[in-house]
C-alpha cells in the first residue's frame, strides 16, 4: 500500500459488492476523499475512515442490488457455475479412479488438488460472467464443505487441518483466482 493508495481489501470488497452503475463513482469518490484525508490527517486515520465507509456501505449496496434484481441474477449465475463445478469435480474424480485406481494416500493428496482446481475454474467463470456472483459461489462452496465435514463424507482418516484447508482455501480460490488473473478489472461493462 503506497502513501496515497487506500486499503486494497476494502477496495476489493466494494468492487465485489457495489452494483455496476455506481461502482466507479463510489470507488472514485472514496479514493479522492481518502487522499485528502491521508494528507490532512494521517494514513492510518484515513484508512480507518475508508474501512468504515466500505463496511457501512455494504448493507445499502446489497439492499440496492436486491431491489434492482442484481442480487438474484448474481445468485443464479453462482448456482449455474456451482453445478458446473460439481460436474467438473465428479468427472475428474471418475477419470482419476478409472486411470490409476488410486490408493487411500493418493486420494488424500489428489482430492485437494482437484477441489481447488475446480474452485479456481468456477471462480474465474463466475467472475467473468458477473463479478458479484463470486461471493455467492464462495458462500455455496463454504456451506458444501461445512456440511460434508459435519456429515463425515470423507471416510478416510485425515488430520483436522486437512478438512480446515478445504473449508478456507476453497472459498478463497473462488474469490482470489479471478482477481489474480486480472479478470475483474476488465469485467465492468459485462455485468
Amino acid at each position, binding site marked *: 500500500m503506497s502513501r496515497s493508495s487506500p486499503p486494497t481489501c476494502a477496495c476489493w470488497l466494494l468492487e465485489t459488492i457495489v452494483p455496476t452503475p455506481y461502482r466507479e*463513482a*463510489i470507488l472514485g*469518490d*472514496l*479514493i479522492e476523499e481518502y487522499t485528502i484525508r491521508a494528507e490532512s490527517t494521517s494514513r492510518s486515520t484515513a484508512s480507518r475512515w475508508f474501512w468504515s*465507509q466500505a463496511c457501512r*456501505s455494504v448493507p445499502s449496496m446489497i439492499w*440496492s442490488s436486491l*431491489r434492482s434484481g442484481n442480487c438474484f441474477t448474481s445468485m443464479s449465475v453462482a448456482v449455474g457455475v456451482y453445478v458446473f463445478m460439481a460436474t467438473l469435480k465428479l468427472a475428474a474424480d471418475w477419470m482419476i479412479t478409472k486411470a490409476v485406481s488410486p490408493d487411500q494416500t493418493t486420494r488424500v493428496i489428489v482430492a485437494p488438488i482437484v477441489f481447488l482446481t475446480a474452485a479456481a475454474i468456477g471462480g474465474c467463470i463466475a467472475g467473468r460472467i458477473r463479478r458479484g456472483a463470486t461471493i455467492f459461489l464462495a458462500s455455496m462452496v463454504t456451506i458444501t464443505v461445512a456440511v460434508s465435514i459435519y456429515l463425515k463424507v470423507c471416510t478416510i482418516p485425515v488430520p483436522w487441518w486437512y478438512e480446515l484447508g478445504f473449508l478456507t482455501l476453497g472459498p478463497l480460490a473462488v474469490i482470489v483466482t479471478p482477481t489474480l488473473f486480472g479478470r475483474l478489472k476488465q469485467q465492468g461493462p459485462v455485468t
Partner: protein
Amino acid sequence: MKRGELLGSLEHIILLALVRLDGNAHGMIVRREIDERTGRNISIGAVYATLERLETKGYVSSFTGEPTPERGGRAKRMFRVEAAGKRALEVSEQTIRSMTAGLKDRWRTI
C-alpha cells in the same frame, strides 16, 4: 409525484443537499454537505443507493464526468435535481408545514 407519496427522510435530505449545491454534485460532496449541516455521518453507499432510487423516480438525473488521476482513474457521477424532484420537495415541505401548523404551543405541553 403521486398523490399521497412522500419523500423518505434521507431522500428529502439528499434532495435538499443537491439544491443547496446548485443541483449539480457528486455523491461525496452530497455526503459532506449533509455531514457538515446536520452532523449525520451517512455512508457513501447509502447516499448512492438513495440517489439511485431518486433517479429511478425521475427526481434527479445523472451524467458521467471525466476520469481523473486523483480518483484512481475513475469517473465522477454528477447529479442534478429535475423539475419532478423540485415538485416533490415542495409537496413534502407543504405537507410538513400543514402538519406542524399551530403546534407551537403544544410542544411545551408534551
